């Protein structure tokens, strides 16, 4: 999709026809702490998934 969009735009297509809107280049204010933040988030998701599995197995067993 991105390739088709880019080609159409380069060939003179309008911004309004792009599936992906053009966005400004912005660096994130949390860039410097991205690594620990994402690590925490991924660990949180892992534990939520594991907890869901545990509950799922209990529901199935009962």
């Amino acid at each position, binding site marked *: *999709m*991105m*390739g*088709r*969009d*880019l*080609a*159409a735009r*380069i*060939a003179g297509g309008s911004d309004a026809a*792009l*599936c*992906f*809107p*053009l*966005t*400004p*280049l*912005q*660096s*994130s204010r*949390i*860039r*410097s*702490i*991205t*690594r*620990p933040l*994402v*690590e925490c988030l*991924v660990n949180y*998701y*892992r534990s*939520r*998934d594991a907890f*869901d*599995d545990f*509950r*799922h*197995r209990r529901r199935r067993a009962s």
Partner: protein
Amino acid sequence: MRTRLFPLPFPPEDPSPIPAYFETFAPPAPVTEKLEGDRHADVVIVGGGYTGLSTALHLAERGIHSVVLEARDIGWGESSRAFGQVVPYLKHSPEHLARQLGHEVAERLVDATGRGPDLVFGLIEKYGIECSVVRNGLIFGAHSPAGLKTLHARTRFWQARGAPVDMLDASRTEALTGTRYYHAASLDRRGGTINPLAYVRGLARSAIERGATVCARTPAMRLMRAAGGWRVEALGASVVSPVVVLATNAYTNGEFWPGLGETLIPMRAYQLVSRPLDEPARARILRGGQPLTDTRRLFSGVRRHADGRIHVSADGPVFDMSAEAHVNKVNRRLAMLFPGLGPLEWEYRWTGWVGMTYDLNAHLHELARQ
């Protein structure tokens, strides 16, 4: 600039090779050109993955000549390392996108994404790309009551638009996948699977046949303004062009365009492929031919290849430059899904860097105008 206290990894330095497993079924990479001297092109594209090569191919269809520069081999980045699902979804739900982007923009994006598989399978057919296509649909299991609600909502949304998406009850899910783990699942017949490496090579071959110039092992080093547009320098040669496309994704070198790399979080994703299953297991597991994912927060796909091997997306450390997938976790998960399968021997493993963005949306930036 790379942060010091908590440095993020730098994928261009990752030497891990293109997946040997996909290589066994992929046609060889097309012969590419060596960049020499000072050339001119209508468009220069930096990055030879799906984005760069599909741009080159679509430009070629319009009679616009492009030069594609790829730092390593064709598809070296994410494109050769993918799980291989062709999906009609984005990370966020249509409602979420409408809140984020406004109704009109979100509608265009959701509609185009829903037709995404048609675009991919259409290109494959049009250009005769041999990439082990299976278009049997995609199965999503509901792993929790909340997941079930999400699947129902998604299915209703797409059914209202006439898309071939259905809910499956537990027995139908078991019949197609061989697992009793899920109470329900959805089957989206728009999607399917491919060999990602073969597909990206096919895009390159098709673009070249239509007149694009593709230069592998040609890292673009510098980009500067020049008479006639921009000059991109690589390996002592250069290309001048009015338009430059940077399609470098997670493998972006931060110094090439200041700030571009900082919009991305490179996160490591792991893939494992087993030895072929024996005949009884093949007859039972994923016999419908669809890949199986579920509604968990972390992606967890399982597919079975034509040679009877199980292929899984594995969890693992997300930022380490050289780390191993959590294989025990994969084995436990497969034991939950397919009790009786027994421990699998993992014959192929590889990793790739996913270019995550801060809002989980794909972004298109206009970096400068002439």
